[in-house]
């Protein structure tokens, strides 16, 4: 069965919610798709204990209040795409969705870099542990080390404390000088200043170390301690959980599958868009982090622009361009001041597992210069995450560029693929062509 929408929005985070609301305000029949059970995306994730953030509730309720209410398609994991239609896996089987215009608002994921012990239970992403705590993961009374890079560390630490965790320290890899320079530029974004002050107050008694990173994690069945390097010295910290993330990477698999051109942001592709957020493919728009990391404000404004454009309201979209440019500049600030220390790329040792799905070590990858050859020979990137973790890390570490996404975009049950009688999955080769 195929359901048709004038405008289909993939991703129900801040960008997707804004896009859906904007498109529906012009009377378009809008479908809003997300793999998660609830709206909000990652930054506005519903908290099992503390509820939904107020701004998120407002954004979610707004889409219901539009002229033609938005159809919410929860737990729809998009697994395949071709011109004007998507295939999604749901708990009840496969669904086909066709669209007049598409807005890609697939957001970002955390950059997770390998180091000895990173596969131990109890080691998670920083945003990862925040997300898990919001799902009800028990952190009360647990000793947590928060490490990596970026403002997300503060947000994660504050969430974890709110859930009763004992945050032993925040280890930001950027230098104290870089952090000061970042803070001095923040006044241009008053909302950010307010947020930073709030976080600072919430974390006033938590030690914040700059130029500091976790070198390794140790433990048998789970992490019990970490080695932290600060300046020239290294020390052991006993802990129950390590939450470590090195910033965000855009999710571009769906856009790539639809043939949208990419730009490069360092080692990672971002969806190429013009000022009005049109991708290189007609009738497909992209908004928010999938176009490059710039944070919540940019995502919300871009969602509105893309939603207006998808509904054919170019004037409404154009009126937001100045705001967009300002919000986007925050992304440049982040990139400049939270640039990663190359020492982080050298933490993994010969026997450190890089591909967690297939247990491929760094040593096994010696001699390979591209992802495809390495995959064929070692199975690196062949598992369930399809290289989203290891391929992204290897690209960031300068080993080899990422390979393109393969079909299905996410692993799917055979029953889902069988359900999908017509049309068949587009035959596309494994897509390892590097631009």
């Amino acid at each position: 069965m195929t359901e048709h929408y004038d405008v289909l929005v993939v991703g129900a985070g801040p960008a997707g919610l804004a896009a859906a609301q904007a498109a529906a305000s012009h009377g378009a029949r809008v479908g809003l798709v997300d793999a998660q059970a609830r709206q909000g995306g990652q930054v506005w994730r519903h908290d099992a204990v503390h509820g939904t953030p107020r701004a998120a509730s407002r954004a979610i309720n707004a889409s219901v209040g539009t002229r033609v209410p938005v159809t919410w398609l929860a737990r729809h994991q998009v697994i395949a795409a071709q011109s004007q239609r998507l295939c999604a896996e749901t708990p009840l089987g496969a669904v086909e969705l066709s669209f007049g215009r598409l807005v890609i608002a697939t957001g970002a994921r955390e950059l997770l870099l390998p180091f000895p012990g990173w596969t131990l239970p109890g080691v998670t992403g920083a945003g990862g542990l925040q997300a898990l705590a919001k799902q009800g993961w028990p952190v009360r009374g647990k000793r947590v080390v928060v490490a990596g890079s970026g403002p997300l560390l503060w947000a994660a630490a504050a969430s974890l404390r709110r859930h009763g965790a004992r945050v032993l320290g925040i280890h930001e890899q950027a230098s104290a000088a870089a952090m000061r320079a970042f803070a001095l530029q923040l006044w241009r974004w008053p909302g950010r200043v307010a947020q930073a002050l709030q976080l600072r107050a919430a974390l006033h008694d938590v030690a914040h170390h700059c130029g500091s990173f976790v070198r390794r994690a140790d433990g048998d069945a789970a992490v019990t301690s970490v080695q932290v390097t600060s300046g020239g010295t290294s020390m052991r910290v006993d802990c129950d959980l390590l939450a470590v993330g090195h910033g965000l990477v855009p999710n571009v698999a769906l856009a790539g599958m639809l043939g949208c051109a990419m730009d490069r942001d360092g080692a990672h592709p971002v969806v190429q868009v013009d000022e009005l957020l049109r991708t290189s493919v007609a009738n497909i728009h992209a908004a928010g982090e999938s176009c490059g990391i710039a944070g919540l404000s940019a995502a919300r404004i871009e969602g509105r622009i893309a939603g207006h454009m998808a509904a054919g309201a170019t004037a409404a979209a154009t009126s937001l361009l100045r705001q967009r440019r300002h919000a986007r500049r925050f992304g440049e600030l982040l990139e400049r001041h939270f640039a990663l220390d190359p020492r982080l790329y050298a933490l993994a040792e010969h026997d450190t597992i890089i591909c967690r799905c297939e247990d491929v070590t760094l040593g096994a990858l010696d001699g390979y210069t591209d992802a495809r050859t390495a995959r064929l020979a070692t199975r690196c990137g062949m598992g369930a995450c399809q290289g989203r973790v290891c391929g992204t890390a290897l690209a960031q570490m300068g080993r080899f560029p990422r390979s393109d996404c393969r079909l299905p975009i996410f692993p799917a049950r055979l029953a889902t693929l069988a359900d999908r009688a017509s049309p068949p999955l587009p035959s596309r080769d494994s897509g390892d062509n590097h631009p």
Partner: protein
Amino acid sequence: MNTVNLSINGHAVTVPATASVAAAIATTPAACFRRSVNGQPRAALCGMGVCFECRVRIDGNPHVRACMTPVGEGMQVHTDD
């Protein structure tokens, strides 16, 4: 607070109705979510459906991401331990 009863590796567990299966598993002494190809214990990593480290069997369906799945009354969860 509304609660839900489910079974994890045959043990009855009661958790808030708003919890994910991943969170429910973390409340139990289950050593890990799955064993890796070489038999190492693994647990949830990304918390947002990307890494597949939290995949478990739910109501007979294998390889379901626990972090993406809300708990349901009577759910039967098996870790790949």
